Each structure stands twice: as C-alpha cells, then as structure tokens.
C-alpha cells in the first residue's frame, strides 16, 4: 500500500471514528446518570442533520446548525420527560424495549416528515472538490471540521464535568445516587439534563458529518450499534476510552474495505463488537472489577 493510500484510509477512518466516539460519549453520559443504554442515541444524530438541512433555506448555515442542535436538545428533554422520568425503578429489559420503541417512533416520524430521500448540508468551507494535500493524499476540509468539532466537544465536555456545578452534580448522581439526593441534588433533573446533553452532542455531530456522509431517516440504527461498540470497547461510562476506541474502530473499518467488499463493512464492526463482548465485556481500557459492580 502506498503512503498516499495509507493516509487516505487513515483520514477516512479518523473522520468516521470521531463520529462514533461522539455517539459513544452520548451513550456514556446517559448510562452514567441512569444505568440505561439509550438505543435511540443514533436518532439524535439523524435529527440534527435532518433539521439543519430543513432550516438552511431560511437562515445562514451557523444559525441553522445552532437552531437544529437546540431543537434536538428539546426533543431529547421531551423524550426523557414523557417516557422515562416518571418510571420508578424499571427493569433493564423494560428500559431496553422502551428506548427501542422511541428509536422506531423517531425514525418513523422522520420518514413521514422528510421522506426517504438522502439529504446533506453544503460543505462548510469550499465545495465537494476542494481538497487539501496531506502527505500526498487529498482530503476534504470538511474532514478537519468533523475532527475539530468533535475534539472541541470532547474537551468542552471534560471541562464541563470537571469545573461546572451542574457537571459535578451529574457526576455525583452517577457515583452514588442516594448520597447525591442527601446532598440536595435532584437526580431526576440530572437525568433529563443528561438526555439534553447527549442529544445536543449527537445533533452537532450529525450536522458536521452531513456534508460527507449524508443524512437519511434510517442512519440512526447503524450509528447506534457502532457507537455502542465503541462505548463497550472503551469501557462503558469511560469517555476518554470512547475517543480512543472510536478512532480505533473507524480506522479498522476504513482499512477493512481495502481487503473485503464494501458491503461487509458494517458486518466487520459488528463482528468486532461480538468478539469484544465475548472476550472482554468490560472493554479494552475498563477494569473487570468495576464492570462486575454495575447492574446490567
């Protein structure tokens, strides 16, 4: 393989990997505060892309993206308040099925609103054929946008959890719900907030990836299962691990298409998921000790 081709695959892998990492972090945020996996996580990415495309004719691009993120956050809050907030200690099976139901309803709403057509935002800088040369390979500036925005999001999130009061309250709920209540934190609000946060992150990722990967009503399931693979790979609840695992999966996937037909790309990442689940269910970076203490 020539250097150019290698760099080309590498950047493709990093682009997709960043998206997977963001979806995985979305899983982690909700998992940490509630102990549930939100199977509708991928739909937030789809909604972000779809809404911004619909808003674009009426306003400039940054405003359309900002508004799309806000609307998706509102949808996230609505979903949590309507379907989850008032349940008292539901079983894992029940939560799985409810979030799957939410995912189906969101997707069906999307297909009835936007149809089955494939949409995309315009490139943020330049157009389809603008490229930058890196080590002989040609990459689109949008790739840098995706990687940059995802990187900024991860750093902001890290600061948010470390320094702000709300972030610390969320971490308190994740660490010990009862103790958090005794300290005067309302865990229900924190759960709603975690849905808003992960919806917003998903939506922003959906906007920046839209010019490259396009947006269709049914992209959510695929993203959700890959995001989950990454979340598991990095250790469920561990966002630093999610970034590393996301890039790893993205790069493996990108290089896999040089060996096997494109149609099997998804099958490969899912096969990785299955292998990881069987061999190291606490993830590459997680500790088995901690995994056993969590309630699955």
């Amino acid at each position, binding site marked *: 393989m020539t250097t150019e081709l290698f760099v080309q695959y590498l950047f493709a892998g990093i682009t997709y990997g960043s998206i997977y990492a963001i979806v995985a972090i979305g899983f982690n945020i909700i998992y940490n505060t509630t102990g549930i996996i939100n199977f509708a996580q991928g739909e937030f990415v789809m909604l972000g892309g779809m809404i911004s495309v619909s808003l674009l004719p009426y306003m400039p691009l940054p405003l359309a993206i900002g508004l799309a993120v806000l609307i998706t956050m509102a949808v996230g809050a609505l979903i949590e308040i309507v379907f989850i907030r008032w349940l008292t200690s539901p079983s894992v099976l029940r939560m799985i099925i409810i979030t799957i139901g939410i995912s189906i309803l969101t997707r*069906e709403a999307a297909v009835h609103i936007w149809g089955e057509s494939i949409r995309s935002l315009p490139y943020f800088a330049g157009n389809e054929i603008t490229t930058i040369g890196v080590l002989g390979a040609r990459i689109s500036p949008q790739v840098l946008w995706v990687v940059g925005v995802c990187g900024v999001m991860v750093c902001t999130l890290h600061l948010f959890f470390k320094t702000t009061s709300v972030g610390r309250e969320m971490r308190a709920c994740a660490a010990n719900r009862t103790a958090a209540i005794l300290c005067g934190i309302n865990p229900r609000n924190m759960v709603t907030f975690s849905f808003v946060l992960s919806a917003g992150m998903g939506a922003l990722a959906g906007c920046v990836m839209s010019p490259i990967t396009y947006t269709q009503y049914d992209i959510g399931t695929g993203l959700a299962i890959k995001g989950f693979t990454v979340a598991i790979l990095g250790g469920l609840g561990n966002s630093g691990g999610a970034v590393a695992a996301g890039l790893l999966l993205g790069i493996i996937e990108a290089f896999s298409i040089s060996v096997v037909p494109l149609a099997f790309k998804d*099958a490969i990442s899912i096969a990785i998921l299955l292998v990881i689940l069987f061999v190291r269910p606490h993830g590459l970076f997680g500790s088995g000790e901690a995994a056993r203490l969590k309630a699955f």
Partner: protein
Amino acid sequence: MKRLYAILPLLGVVVLIQMLTTWMGTQFYLTQMTMAAYYSLLIIGLCVLMGYAGQISLGHAGFFAIGGYLSAALTTRNLMPYREEWLVRLLDSGGLLQSGKDMYGSDLLVVWPWAAALFAVLMAALIAILIGIPVLKLKGHYLAMATLGFGIIIYRLVLATPWFGEADGISGVPPFELLPGLVVRGDVSGRVQNYYIAWGMLLFGLFLLLNLINSRIGRALRAIHGSEEAADAMGVNISRFKLQTFVLSAVFAAIAGILLTHFNGGIGPSEAGVMKSVRYVAIVAVGGMAHLWGALIMGVLLNFLSLRGVFGSYDDAVFGLILILIMLFAPNGILTLLPRKKDQAPVQAAPKDEEA
C-alpha cells in the same frame, strides 16, 4: 392430555373461521391468516425464550431468514451446470435432488424440498448453538446488543451475497410437498389446505411448548428467570437450559421461515431486517412475556392486521408505539390490564429493582 383439551377450543375457532370465510365468500382472508400463523410459530418460540427463560433476542428475524433463505436457495438455484461435481453427484445418488423444467423449458436440477428444509433447520440450530454459547453468558444491554448485532450481520450477508439474490431476494421458490397430497404452496386452489397446514403446525408447536413449560425444564427456566444465582445454587444447569431454549426458539423461527417462504414462493431481505426482530419482541411483550396464549393470540391478530395493510405506511410506527405503550403502562402484558382471577395469574415477568 389435559393440555390437549385446552387447545381444542382454539381448533374449533380455526375451523369456524375457515367455514365462515367460505360461507361469506371472503376466503382471501385465509391467505393472511396462513402467513400470520407462520409468524406466530416464531413468536411462540421467542415467547418461551423471553418470557420463561428471561433472555431477550433482537435477532430472531435472522433465524427466520436462515431457514427461509437456505431452503429457498437450495430448492431454486439450478445445479445443472455443476452436475459433474462430486458433491452434486453424491446428493443425486442419495436421491436428494429433483429434476424438472424451468419456465423456459430448460432442464432444472434442484435440491429436494425436504432435504433443503432439514438442512436449513440443522444450520439454524448449529448457528444458534455457536452464537448462543457466548451470547447467553451476557445479560441486559449486552445481550440485547449482541443479538441485535447478530441480526444485522445476517441482514448484511443476505444483502451482499449474490447467491441469496442481494436486494431482490429469491423468487420462484417451488411448492413443498410435506406428505403426498399435502403441499405448501401459494396458489388459490391450495388456500384452504394451506390454512390448515399452517394452523396445524402452529397448534402442534403450541402443544409442544405448553408441555415443555409445564415440565421439569419449564420450572427450571422459570427459576433461572427469577434468579440465576438461586437457580444455580439449587442445581439447575443454567447455561445448558438457556442454550437449549435459545436453540429451540431458533428452530421454531427457521421452520416458520421455511414454510412461509414456500407458501409465498419467495423471500426478500426485509424478512431479515432489524424491524422484523423488534416487531416479534413487541408482540411477545404485548402478549404478556411469560404467556404463550397471549403471544399466540397477539401474534395472529397483529400480524393479520399488518398483512391486511390496516396500518398503511404507519406499520412500523404502530409496532413502535405498541412497544412503548405496553412497556410503560402494562409491562406484564395487555391481559394484566383486565381484572383476573388470582389462581389464573401467570408467572409474572415482574420488573426487578435495578437501582439501589
């Protein structure tokens, strides 16, 4: 024998429906009733896995597709160009192939449907064992995602393999002669006969499963559902029982897939789709998880309505909504919303407290 009597009223209803539709001249309903019966065969198998053994599977459409696709491909793909290969010669000398003419009059050599069906069921069982051993060690989200992943892999493989017809699926699947005179096929003349074949299979399956859950195995499964640790401590071999149930439900799914494919005369990739798996889970949930009769009734009813096109383009949305509403308001099935006598209460798939 008692359980055989419990099925008799249902048999009466089945005959009554056939007579009513014949009398009213609305026999076309029987076609959808036949298809609904095959889907319900899968659903009652899944019900035992989910409701009694307590293991969720979001990949059962995969087993349905393994059955349907293998049977369809083997009985449809012409082996004539390969008839000199040793494997084909071996099959032929074993009497496992049948020759005929295709629609253009050229020679056709395909696998005998019975042999294809047995192979498909064996493959489904084998894959269920291979997948089941590692997967069933997982719990909760991990189990759900792993089975979902399995379903997606099957879907992708079917969609990417020319031998399985890629996006077009396989059409022109020949009839399946179960016994002399008893043929699974889709044309109008065989409608009533096929209605009875499908319902016969479904009722027989129900009878087997009813016996199973009221036997020692059934009690062991319920113990596992209640608490794996406790069941383990009482000497129940958890992993073996979970695996056996998983394989059994996979075989039910494969048989349903085979028969429905021969009845429809074809199969498409949508049968392997994630939405189908989710739909089966939804129906088991509506029926009450640990409630075979509920799963059967809801399976027939909802599939019939869906096949009749009652839900229009909102088909998937309706199943999504049903799933959410049931899980929010009646996690133990729709029947629990009705007042019931105490001694009739089934094993409750009671929500366990997960949060400390």
